[in-house]
C-alpha cells in the first residue's frame, strides 16, 4: 500500500476511533504505552514542521459514538421520532405514508456511514458450501462431521465495508442530546 493511502487511512481511523487515536498518539510520542487519554486528531491545521508535530493531548467531553449515530438517524431520517411514537392508533396506510421517507433517508445514512453489503453473493435458497474458517457464518440445524459443510443459504448476511460515524466535538451539556429542543421565534 502506498504511504499516501496509509496516511489517509490512519487519519480517518484516528478521527472515528478514540482507541486508535490513543495508539497513534503513543506512536508519535515515542513513549511506551500510557493510560488512555482522548488524543486530539490533527486535521484542519496548517502543516507544521516535523519537530512540532506532537499531537496535542486535550481533555474534552466525549460521547458515545452510538449516541452520535442515533442523532444522525434522527436528524436525517427522524428515526427516533418514529420509534418513540405509539403507532397502535394509526391505520396501516398512514404509517406506510410516513415510512417511505424514513426508510429512504435512514437507508441513505446506513449506506453512507457503513456501506453495508451482503457477505454471501449467492441467492438465498441456493445450496452453498460454508468455508472451513466460518467466523462470518452461522451454521444451524444438525451439525456433524468436519468442515467444510454444505447447506441451504437462509440469509446472505450483512457486513459493513466502512465505519465512519461522525465525530462529535460539542460540550458536556449537550452530550446526551439526540435532538435539540426547537423553538420558533414569533414576530
Amino acid at each position: 500500500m502506498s504511504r499516501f493511502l496509509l496516511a489517509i487511512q490512519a487519519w480517518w481511523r484516528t478521527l472515528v476511533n478514540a482507541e486508535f487515536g490513543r495508539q497513534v498518539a503513543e506512536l508519535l510520542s515515542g513513549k511506551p504505552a500510557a493510560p488512555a487519554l482522548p488524543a486530539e486528531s490533527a486535521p484542519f491545521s496548517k502543516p507544521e514542521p516535523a519537530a512540532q508535530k506532537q499531537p496535542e493531548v486535550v481533555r474534552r467531553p466525549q460521547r458515545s459514538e452510538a449516541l452520535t449515530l442515533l442523532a444522525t438517524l434522527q436528524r436525517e431520517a427522524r428515526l427516533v421520532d418514529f420509534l418513540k411514537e405509539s403507532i397502535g392508533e394509526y391505520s396501516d396506510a398512514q404509517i406506510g405514508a410516513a415510512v417511505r421517507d424514513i426508510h429512504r433517508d435512514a437507508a441513505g445514512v446506513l449506506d453512507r456511514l457503513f456501506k453495508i453489503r451482503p457477505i454471501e453473493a449467492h441467492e438465498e435458497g441456493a445450496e452453498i458450501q460454508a468455508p472451513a474458517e466460518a467466523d462470518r457464518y452461522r451454521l444451524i440445524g444438525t451439525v456433524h462431521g468436519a468442515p467444510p459443510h454444505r447447506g441451504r443459504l437462509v440469509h446472505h448476511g450483512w457486513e459493513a465495508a466502512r465505519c465512519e460515524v461522525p465525530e462529535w466535538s460539542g460540550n458536556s451539556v449537550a452530550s446526551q442530546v439526540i435532538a435539540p429542543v426547537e423553538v420558533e421565534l414569533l414576530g
Partner: protein
Amino acid sequence: MVAKFVIGIDLGTTNSALAYAALAADKPQVQVLPIPQLVAAGTVEPRTLLPSFLYLAQEHEVKARSFDLMKAKGRDFAVGELARRQSAEMPDRTVGAAKSWLGHSQVDRHQPILPWNAPAEIPKISPVTASQRYLEHLVAAWHAAVPDAPIAQQHVVLTVPASFDASARELTREAALAAGLPQSLVLLEEPQAALYAWLADEGNRWRKQLKVGDTLLVCDIGGGTTDLTLIGVADEAGELVLRRIAVGNHLLIGGDNMDLALAYRVSELFAEKGTKLDPWQSISLWHSCRTAKEALLAADAPKKHSIAVLGRGSKLIGKTVSVEVDRELVTDLLVNGFFPECDTKDRPIRRRTSGFQEIGLPFESDTAITRHIAEFLAQHGDPKTGPVQPTHLLFNGGVFKADRLRTRLVEILAGRSKKSPPRPLAGATDLDHAVARGAAAYGWSKERGSVRIRGGTARSYYVGIETSGLAIPGAPRPLRALCVVPIGMEEGTAVDVPSQEIGLVVGEPAHFRFFSSSVRKQDKPGDLLSAWDDGDVAETDSLEATLPKDDSLPDSYVPVHFQSKLTELGVFELWCVGSQKEQRWKLEFSVREDAE
C-alpha cells in the same frame, strides 16, 4: 519542493468538490477527497461534496463553540452541509449562490452584501469572501489528509463557468489566492473540465469515438446555472485535436429551479388537502421532489409516485400528509416547461416585468433551456449552412440523472438533423464530481503531456472610447468600442492594438468602460465599433489606471496605445504603452467604483 500532486477544485454554485491525482503515476488516477464538515452543531462528518453555503452564527452559538471545526475554535460561521440545512430555517443568516454574485457586475463584489436583503443587524460578507471561505475549507481538508504536500506547492486547477468574463475570473482568482492557493493556479472552464473527465475515463479510446469534423456540444446544467460549450474535432499534422469553438452566455437557470417548480406545484396539491407547510417541511418537500423527479423521469418510470411530508413535531406519523404525484404532471411541468419542443428558429423570450427591476441576481425570465440552446447554436452557426448541428453531446450536472431529460435533449437536437441525431458520449456517470475530476485530469495532462483542448479566449474584449466631436448639452458623447482582444487569442501571447493615439491624463485615475462579446468572431484588434447589438456585446467592470506625475513629461497627458496580453495561466492583462517614451502602465479592474 517539487509538486507531487495535481489538484482539481470545482467551486460550484451549490456544491464544491476537490479531486487529486499523483503526478508520479503512469496514468491520471484521479480520486475525490472526502471533506470533513459540520453536519450539525458539534458534529463533523466527511462528505465528498461541500455544499457552497455559509451560515453566519448567532452570538450564543459562537459562545457555545458549536461551530468548532477541529483546531478552528470559536468560529462565527460554518460552511458546508450544516449551512445548507440552515438555509431553509434561517435564510436571513445563510449565504448561497455566492458564485452567481461573482459573475454579476451590477453590484460591488467586494462589499459585504450577502445574505442579500437580510436585515441590517445581521452580519454580512462579500461574494469574494464567501468564495474564499469555501476554498479555505477545501484547502484545510487537503492539508489534514496530506500534511506533507502543502497545497501552495502543488499544481492546482480551479474551474470557472465558461461564461465568466475576465472580471469574474479575476475575482475568482483573488478569492483563491487569499485562500492560500498558489500563484501558479490555472483557471479551467467547467464544460471543458467535464470533457477532460470523459477523456480520462476513456483513455485512448476517445480517438475511436470522435473523428475529424465532429462537433461536440457540452451541456452542463448545475444546480443554479446552465453553461454551454461547443468543441470541434480537427486534424493537425495527422493528429486529432480538440478545439473549443464557442461558449454560451451566463444563464442563471438550473436543476434547483426545476426542483423548486415541482415543489411549488406539489405544495399546491397539499394546500388542496388543507395542509399548509412550514419552512422546514418545505425543504423536506424540496428534497422529496428531487427524488420524485428522478423516479418519475427514469427510463422505466412508474405512473405515480407518492410524496409525503412528515409531521413537524415529535408526533411524526399522526401529522404526516402525503399526495400522489402523476408522471404526467412531472413530465408536463419539467420536460415541457424546461425542455420544450423547439426548432432552430426559436429564441428565448426576454421580458422586463417593469421599469423598476430589483438589482438582485438576473435570473433568466425564460426557463426553456432548449430555446437558449437553439439561440446559442444559431449564434455560432454559418450564415449559409444555418445553425451548428452537433454530432455528439456530453451531459454534465446532476439534472441529467433523470433519463427522460437526456433523451428529450437528444430528440430535440435530432429534430435539426433527422438523419444523424447527436450521439451522447457514454461514460461520465459520476455527474456530481466530474468537473473536479476533470480539472485534476487536465492538470495531469498539462504536466505530463496528453490531449488538451485548445481555443484561447472564448470572448472578444473592447475598450470604450468616447469620440471627440461636437458636444451636445445633456447628451453623452457617442461611445465607440475598440477591440483589444479577439475571440480565440491563445494563452501566452500578446498583441499590440493598432489604434489612434489615446491621451491619458497624468496624476488622476483614467477610467475606461469595458465590454465583451462571445459571438463577434469577425472583430480583430484595432477594429472600432460604432454600433452594436446589446444582445451581442455586454458591459462588464470598468478598467482604470493612474499614471504618476512625471516631470520629464512636457504635457499633462501622455499619448498611449493598448497592448493586451494573455498569460500562460490564462490571466488577462491590458497595458497602456507610451507612444513616445518606453513606459507601460497596467490597467486594473475597478470593481469597487462600479457599485450602484
